[in-house]
């Protein structure tokens, strides 16, 4: 398979096609409009469906309708747009419909900024929608990883009959990096006749399907929520993904960082190593489920004296880090949230201040 140089947003669009998803509904918003621009040309070429909806609210429901009809479908947006999709996502979780949502994070809150941030962590992992609503959330740190995660997101969504989110940021969306589209991640859509409203004729069945999230009977609603909880518990057991960096030997500081920020931390770790300062890092690749065990284990290394959550927000993942560390080590936070990506030098300054 050959490598191509691609802009993150376009690679994400292409990855969905390679994953067998030929349906995309979206609304323009900086910094991810290039996905729609790319797919507006590419999907008709592939005989797929492209539609620019009138708002992110409408788009989230177009996604719901298409998913309910049993087809693979996805959308991309950015922070304020994801807020608008919150209700629709909650409906899809309650109704158990699979789809992929990509958030190319930008500065917030409110209109915020158009530069990268990681300030939707809590929204993605804890508050994506009302009710007991969780998404499996994958966090890429490169365009290549974004491609791979998009391609695995579709079978994961179908495995759980639940939306899956790719949590990227404006840098991943905008930068160009070499990409190889992996053949081995191509998967055929699962059979959805058990639940999809794709027409009795399609299923050759006399039994109709009903997709809903309303259960007026409190016992039935509790039953539905138990089903959802079982999914989240299964995700926690089976879907944790993380990368450990420089954790084999001893280190005084453990960094926990994801996405674009983790790449800066990696550079900082390499440069500190040259100065004789050892820093380890756990990079969550799933932020839900959070790699609690990996973080706890890495934090409890004898040499490790402090844990640092480094993120482009005012401190969101830090709460999950604190919970994973269970008070065994102090947990500190460093970040910026205006759209500037912290430099390796800034990270090094912060880390050395901790080690002191």
């Amino acid at each position, binding site marked *: 398979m050959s490598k191509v140089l691609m802009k993150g947003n376009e690679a994400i669009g292409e990855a969905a096609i390679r994953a067998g998803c030929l349906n995309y*509904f979206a609304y323009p918003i900086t910094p991810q409009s290039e996905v729609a621009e790319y797919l507006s040309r590419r999907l008709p070429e592939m005989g797929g469906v492209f539609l620019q909806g009138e708002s992110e609210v409408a788009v989230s429901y177009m996604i719901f309708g298409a998913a309910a009809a049993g087809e693979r479908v996805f959308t991309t947006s950015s922070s304020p747009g994801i807020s608008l999709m919150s209700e629709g996502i909650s409906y899809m979780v309650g109704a158990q419909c699979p789809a992929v949502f990509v958030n190319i994070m930008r500065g917030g809150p409110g209109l915020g900024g158009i530069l990268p941030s990681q300030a939707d962590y809590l929204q993605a992992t804890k508050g994506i929608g009302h009710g007991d609503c969780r998404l499996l959330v994958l966090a890429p740190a490169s365009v290549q990883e974004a491609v791979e995660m998009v391609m695995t997101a579709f079978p994961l969504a179908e495995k759980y009959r639940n939306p899956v989110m790719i949590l990227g940021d404006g840098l991943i969306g905008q930068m160009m990096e070499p990409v190889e589209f992996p053949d081995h991640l191509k998967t055929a859509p699962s059979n959805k006749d058990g639940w999809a409203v794709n027409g009795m004729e399609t299923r050759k069945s006399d039994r109709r399907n009903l997709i809903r*999230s309303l259960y007026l009977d409190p016992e039935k609603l509790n039953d539905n929520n138990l089903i959802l909880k079982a999914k989240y518990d299964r995700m926690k057991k089976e879907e944790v993904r993380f990368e450990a960096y420089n954790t084999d030997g001893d280190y005084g500081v453990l960094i926990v960082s994801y996405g674009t920020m983790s790449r800066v931390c990696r550079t900082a770790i390499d440069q500190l190593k040259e100065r004789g300062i050892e820093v380890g890092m756990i990079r969550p690749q799933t932020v839900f489920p959070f790699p609690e065990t990996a973080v706890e284990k890495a934090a409890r290394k004898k040499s490790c004296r402090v844990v640092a959550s480094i993120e482009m927000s005012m401190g969101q993942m830090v709460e999950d880090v604190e919970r994973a560390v269970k008070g065994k080590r102090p947990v500190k936070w460093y970040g910026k949230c205006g759209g500037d990506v912290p430099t390796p030098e800034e990270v090094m300054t912060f880390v050395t201040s901790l080690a002191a």
Partner: protein
Amino acid sequence: MGKTFHKPLALSDQVTHYCPGCTHGVIHRLVAEVIDELGIERRTVGIAPVGCAVLMYNYFTFDFLEAAHGRAPAQATGMKRVRPDLVVFTYQGDGDLASIGMGEIIHAANRGEKITVIFVNNAVYGMTGGQMAPTTMPNQRTTTSPFGRRVQEVGMPIKMAELLAALQTPAYIARQTVIKPKFVNKAKKSIKKAFEYQLAGQCFSFVEVVSTCPTNWGLTPVEAVRWAEETMLPYYQLGELKTPE
């Protein structure tokens, strides 16, 4: 003696929860009869609203998707675009379609989505207990307009059929009513035409059905019919406002 009249096959045996004098029962029946006559039950998907008809899926025998309040036209758009062979219809009340769902209905109609929309207009929010709707008549008392709809404060009622008919995209836009037997056949004809346009893949189709809500109007069913005839029909005029030809 053979059967001359029977319950449509597309209706289930479930007893409905609607109030005495509610027109949902009649409209549901007309939709079911049309689906029977066109033989499309096995490839139809209904999209249920949030409103009194929130449980309408219990009364029909084919695939149904529950919609969020106002979002049915967007859900229908997603479904129809990825599965154009399915017959997709929404069934929505005034709050659902003309208030929170105003954006979705206008854009679905404007894009010419090949879906069918049945709009039940009873000038009030039924399910939530009788609040004012965008279609509430001037001076009509509701639980959130206890002194009557004050037009100087909140404007005139919205004529959805005219609003959608003003869009430039070809469509079938009709307004009918089922409040009296003499109107019911015309209503069924429009509903059937609406589905036929969808089957031909021709255009967006929309049938507004002027309806009664005795419970929330605080009237008996008979008084409600009279009030609808005297107050609503002169304003919400019946007929085919637009055809795609």
